[in-house]
């Protein structure tokens, strides 16, 4: 175990650890552009220069491995001067178009300039190198070569993470620029991560382009529900509107997230969002819709019609159990169905799972516990309650079903507008058996309701008042892991 002294304090380092890692682990921040914890070390930006005793020149902290007895200084005059000069060099050909740049607020150039630079440019505006601006290079990305500082994080990302290698550095010297191989587009499934790891505004997202300033957004930790992987995400929103989704890197599941998951916030607001419930082809406010639905169920129960209930892999554990409770305890029906167990495996070797539903692990456990039948056994019924996406896959007449949906669909007679998991809480068990919860980040449209509350209200109308303990007992019986 080598012992090193950084800024006068002694720290114990691990074998083959770099100076930057030791410093960061102990709370000493060294500025960097090209270093990224999840990518290989390039050492080309020279921003992390530190002074090491007995070495004639300044060394880059990101690529220097520690040895026993190393004495490192990160705050000396020599280091500060070096940082200032590196910054001046990186800003030499920078166009300084911060007013129209989307990176403002999370730009390393701006942050480090205020901290270490504060020096006027010695080059005239006319003498700056001009490079291509606003290049459309893929489905999700826009590239601005003038803003680029050639840290090659993007090139390394495409080589090491997605292994598609679309990007490379073209030309030489101060004319070099990031380019894309001919007749190719940057269309891999993880392309928007490049916009995240770009320390400057060279790669920006098309979807987020000019929508909002980054420093105005507030962040809520949640999970992605696009597939069974269940990545942890940060939902960024302002004034009740979600603007983008970023990954929340963790050692258990994900460092990145896929583009599909990033676009999943669009269900909350859009032209086809269902904001009012439809019962018998008529729009109703929330309270009236619940009473109308209750009337339908009551009539069906009195006439001894066959009421079927579908548990859904798309809904949370609480919602599924509330649906089961509604069917079993209140409607007294045996026709409760769940999907059969799905094969879960990472399809592309990075994150995307073969199973596209977020909660199939929990639902298959519930169906084993209570002996619930499979979707395939559903032959015929008079009334069907279930999640929209599940009913779509079954061959049941659409006028017979009550669909819980985010999406408006004119083919259905009965649609209940429910809250998305960006607007309400829910627990999910991912493919690694981690139990994770979504958190509400924005408020839902007024006439929507969560499935849990809907089931609760209907059982109250039937004269049952289930206690929270009764509805949450399922958590004692499920098998799951927690992260801490």
């Amino acid at each position: 175990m080598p012992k090193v002294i950084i800024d006068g304090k002694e720290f114990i380092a691990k074998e083959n650890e770099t100076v930057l890692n030791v410093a960061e682990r102990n709370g000493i921040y060294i500025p960097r552009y090209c270093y990224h914890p999840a990518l290989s070390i390039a050492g080309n930006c020279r921003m992390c220069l530190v002074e090491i005793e007995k070495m004639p020149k300044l060394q880059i902290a990101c690529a220097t491995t520690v040895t026993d007895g190393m004495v490192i200084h990160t705050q000396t005059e020599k280091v500060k001067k070096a940082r200032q000069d590196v910054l001046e060099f990186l800003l030499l050909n920078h166009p300084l178009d911060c007013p129209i740049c989307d990176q403002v607020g999370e730009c390393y150039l701006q942050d480090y300039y205020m901290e270490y630079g504060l020096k006027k440019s010695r080059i005239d505006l006319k003498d700056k190198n001009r490079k291509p601006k606003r290049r459309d290079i893929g489905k999700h990305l826009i590239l601005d070569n003038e803003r680029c500082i050639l840290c090659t994080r993007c090139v390394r990302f495409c080589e090491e993470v997605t292994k598609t290698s679309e990007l490379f550095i073209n030309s030489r010297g101060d004319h070099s620029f990031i380019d894309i191989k001919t007749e190719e587009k940057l269309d891999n499934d993880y392309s928007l991560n490049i916009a995240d790891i770009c320390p400057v505004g060279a790669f920006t997202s098309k979807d987020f382009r000019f929508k909002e300033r980054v420093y105005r957004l507030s962040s809520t930790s949640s999970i992605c529900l696009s597939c069974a992987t269940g990545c942890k995400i940060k939902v960024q929103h302002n004034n009740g509107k979600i603007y983008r989704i970023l990954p929340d890197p963790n050692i258990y599941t994900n460092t990145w997230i896929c583009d599909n998951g990033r676009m999943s916030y669009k269900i909350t607001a859009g032209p086809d969002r269902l904001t009012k419930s439809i019962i018998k082809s008529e729009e109703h406010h929330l309270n009236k819709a619940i009473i109308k639905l209750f009337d339908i169920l009551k009539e069906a129960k009195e006439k001894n019609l066959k009421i079927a209930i579908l548990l859904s892999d798309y809904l949370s554990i609480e919602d599924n159990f509330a649906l089961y409770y509604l069917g079993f305890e209140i409607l007294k029906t045996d026709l409760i169905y769940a999907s059969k167990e799905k094969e879960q495996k990472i399809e592309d070797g990075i994150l995307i799972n073969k199973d596209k539903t977020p909660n199939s692990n929990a639902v298959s456990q519930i169906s084993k516990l209570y002996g619930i039948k499979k979707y395939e056994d559903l032959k015929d019924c008079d009334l069907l309650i279930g999640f929209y996406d599940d009913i779509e896959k079954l061959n049941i007449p659409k006028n017979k079903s009550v669909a819980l949906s985010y999406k408006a669909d004119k083919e259905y007679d009965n649609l209940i507008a429910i809250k998305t998991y960006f607007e309400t809480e829910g627990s999910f068990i991912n493919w690694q058996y981690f139990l994770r919860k979504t958190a509400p980040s924005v408020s839902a449209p007024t006439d929507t309701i969560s499935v849990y509350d809907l089931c609760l209200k209907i059982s109250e109308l039937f004269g049952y008042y289930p206690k929270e303990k009764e509805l949450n007992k399922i958590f004692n019986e499920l098998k799951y892991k927690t992260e801490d």
Partner: protein
Amino acid sequence: MIRTKKIESKPLNFFEKIYIIEVIRGFSVTLKHFFINLFFPSKIPTISYPEEKVLLPGNAKLKSRHRIKLRSDGTPKCVACMMCSTICPADCIHIEAAETETPVEKYPKVFNIDISKCVMCGLCVEACPEDAISMDTNEIAGGAYSRFSNFQKDGLFLTKNELFIKLKDEKISKLGAANRLENEYGERND
């Protein structure tokens, strides 16, 4: 601690005490103005606002109603960087950005200023990196000086139509991110 200062008033003299002489003195001031107004109307110190106007004095004209300056091709200089709406202490500026085909890339699709909330601090003018917003129209928003005023409350809500204007005899300034905009360096004179 509250500081107090005692002011001793001058005691009244005999003529002031008998009161009637001071009343006559006061009336004489009123009568003086009455005769000036009657025989020399051009010397009246007041104006019949809002039909008549005078130029605002001194620096007051630099804190008048906002406008957004235009480039020589008529597009707004504003690039919707949101600096003004970020710094605004009254939160009265609302901007929505959009993309244009010109080399500027970004322009304000919606630009609203709610003057009824505005505190006329001028921070937006100082914050603007493009030298686009200014308060030099010499008009009082919503008042008679405003060319768009209808003396109603909604006259205080300025949108693009009211804000994007060019003053008479205005020279186009070359400040801001002008190096991207060739039309600013062009020798066009409108």
